[in-house]
């Protein structure tokens, strides 16, 4: 069993994680453990070396995990509790899935209402005048009869 530990610098809901500082451990599980949320012990020379690791990959499972708990037990035994990172684990398949995208940073319809867009309570008021107005006046007189001599 090959377990690789990493320092994950990406947010949890990022599909493709940036993982660094790989440390490789080999061994065998000596107790039952879940594949989705394994928990196991590592025998390390110095427990503090695991301080910066927050992410793991188990080769045989082909899955990526968040290290959600580290417990130092007797001696130099450190128990790691993991939770599967489904985004990174199934990244390739996930990217080929069809979906109805409701929000994105690259494709959008800006004319759909967006409840998360914020506006201030105060508005701006604009005035647009027409180019012409009634700037003159004139008289109109109505008279009876035709304007012809009779």
């Amino acid at each position: 069993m090959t377990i690789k530990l990493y320092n994950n610098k990406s947010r949890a809901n990022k599909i493709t994680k940036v993982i660094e500082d790989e440390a490789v451990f080999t061994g065998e599980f000596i107790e039952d453990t879940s594949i989705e949320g394994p928990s196991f012990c590592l025998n390390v020379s110095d427990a503090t070396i695991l301080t910066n690791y927050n992410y793991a990959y188990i080769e045989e499972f082909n899955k990526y995990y968040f290290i959600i708990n580290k417990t130092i037990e007797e001696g130099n035994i450190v128990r790691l509790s993991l939770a599967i990172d489904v985004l990174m684990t199934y990244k390739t398949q996930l990217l080929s899935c069809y979906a109805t995208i409701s929000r994105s940073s690259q494709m959008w319809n800006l004319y759909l209402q967006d409840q998360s867009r914020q506006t201030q309570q105060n508005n701006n008021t604009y005035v647009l005048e027409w180019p012409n107005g009634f700037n003159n006046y004139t008289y109109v007189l109505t008279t009876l009869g035709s304007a012809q001599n009779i």
Partner: protein
Amino acid sequence: MASEMVFSWGTNLTATDTINDIDFTAEQAATFVPILDCIDHFFTDYMQSYVEQGGAGLSSTFLPIYLSSIPEMRARIEHVKACVRNAITSNNLEGVITGAIRWDDLTSFSTGANPIVSSGGDFWMYYYNDYSDYETYKSNFNLNTERVIASNGSNKFRYLKDSVNYQGTIRYILVRFGSYWDVNTTPTVTTGTYYQSSGYWTRGRWWDVNASSSTYFLGSWASMLGTSEYDRYNPSGTDNSTSGKYPSSEMGGLGTFDDSTDLSDISSKPSLNIFNLGFYSLWNPTAAELQALSSVVWNDPTNWQQWPQIFQSGILKYTDYMPSLGIFPVSSSDLTLQNTNFCMGGIIFNGGLASLGTTLTMNQIKEQIIDINLGSISLKEYFGSFLDYAPYTSCSLYLPFFGTVELSMNEIQNADKITILYRINLYDGATVIKVHIEKLNNAAQNGSVDLKHVLYEYNTNVKTEIPITSGANSEHMKTIATIVAAAATTVAAPIAGAGAAALAGAAGSGAAGGSALAMVAKNAPEIGQAVSGAVKTGASVANRAINSMPSGGGIQRGNNGSMAFGLLSERTPFLVINRPIQVLSEHYKEEYGYTASIYTTIGTITEGYIRCDNIDTTNIACNEQEREKLIQILTNEGAYI
């Protein structure tokens, strides 16, 4: 008639099968009914056009054959439609029709020689699709995109739903029913545009290209898939880009999706002139001329001795022949005038009056109805988003001699021209204010169809009466006071901004304002009043009193501006727009994304944020717990690529 044809999926159709022989799913029907209607329409109009043109291009020998073939042609249309539908339903909206319509089937209309389809004749349906399988056809016929329904014994129709280039949208279809197209012959385009470099054909144009041996029809129907040139989402990834594609096959209904609309300018004014009837005359006196006239009216009665007997006897007064004098907010240059001898009652105003000289000439008005065009403004989107429209952005329009009204932001936003025209009846001041909206070619930006029409129409009165008798003056003062009282106490009722209600004028009681018009009505006989209904009823003046328009949340910006008040009010129209102040945090787009409704693969988004309404995870080999977690992340909090 063709013999039985076998399709690649083993579906057998006979030559007489019609569209009714194939069952469609609702989605398929919604998508392709318009295409088939397109074919139907093409043949109907094409054939009709041919008939009307006397079968232009057909010799006298073949024309009768063609005309007699029309019923059979109609049958072929139905068969082609059935074939297309069958192809589409059989293979997930992608299919190839083989042997569907052979060219020789089309030639069988003739008795041997082919009057309609020559030896190389084909039945083609082109649509915008860069699918490359038909390069051979393309090179033969010098076309860039084409999908052949029937051709020279090898008949194919392919419609790919989601090809990279195609994007699953049929926008335009060229249906060509013609003869062999010699590649060396350049078609002569008689009208319209056949092919544009962008691959789009002009929407809505028909043209008939008569090449040396070809006659064919181009038709593009935006409605065939419920699309216009606007595509509802944007795959480009460019900031602020608003181009996009309409989701394929998702119409949401089986309506016609017909985006055609009538476009028109402001109607021309009526040519009615009451002074042609001989009972009235309208004059445009200068102040000096009015002074001269009043000096006669109020001068020493001995001057009356100069006048005919009827005036001397006191039976009639001058003012009886001058029912109305008013001020209009126009210039003399706006009027059609003819300088002539001033007269009343058919009697020229002359007679050696010492104060006037021998005669008084005055400009007579020769056109009773005038149009005062106050010009146009344009209004462009500020945000380029939903924030430009109601309820986020609102507007009100101040109209001189009327007041303030609310307009529909959806109708005027992005208008190329908002034109205001006052159509004035110089007889009584009755005025109709027309607001004409012109908004063209917005489809690509925001999906809106063309708009060019008068959408708002308001009745008012722009004449300020100058009472020339004491009785008339009392009436005038009373009317003014009544109008002010009505405006102050009456709750304003909003005028519907659009549609028939606006054009018909708003409702309201006629009590207050009626008196103002009644004053005019007293001095004017019935003749001529029919010119404007507002004069008769008086309702419109009262309406102006009531229609003190609130704008934006019940705010009252003003009240009655008609008649005497109008002259004292603002006399240039203006639009008041209330826009929100948007607050976008830094990197909003990258962190939150913008709203969308796009069906595509998640991997289409290559960076930034993504959130989905639904995901098809069937191809992910995971357990249900993991699947639920995947869906929960992508539909609730979203993810970053």
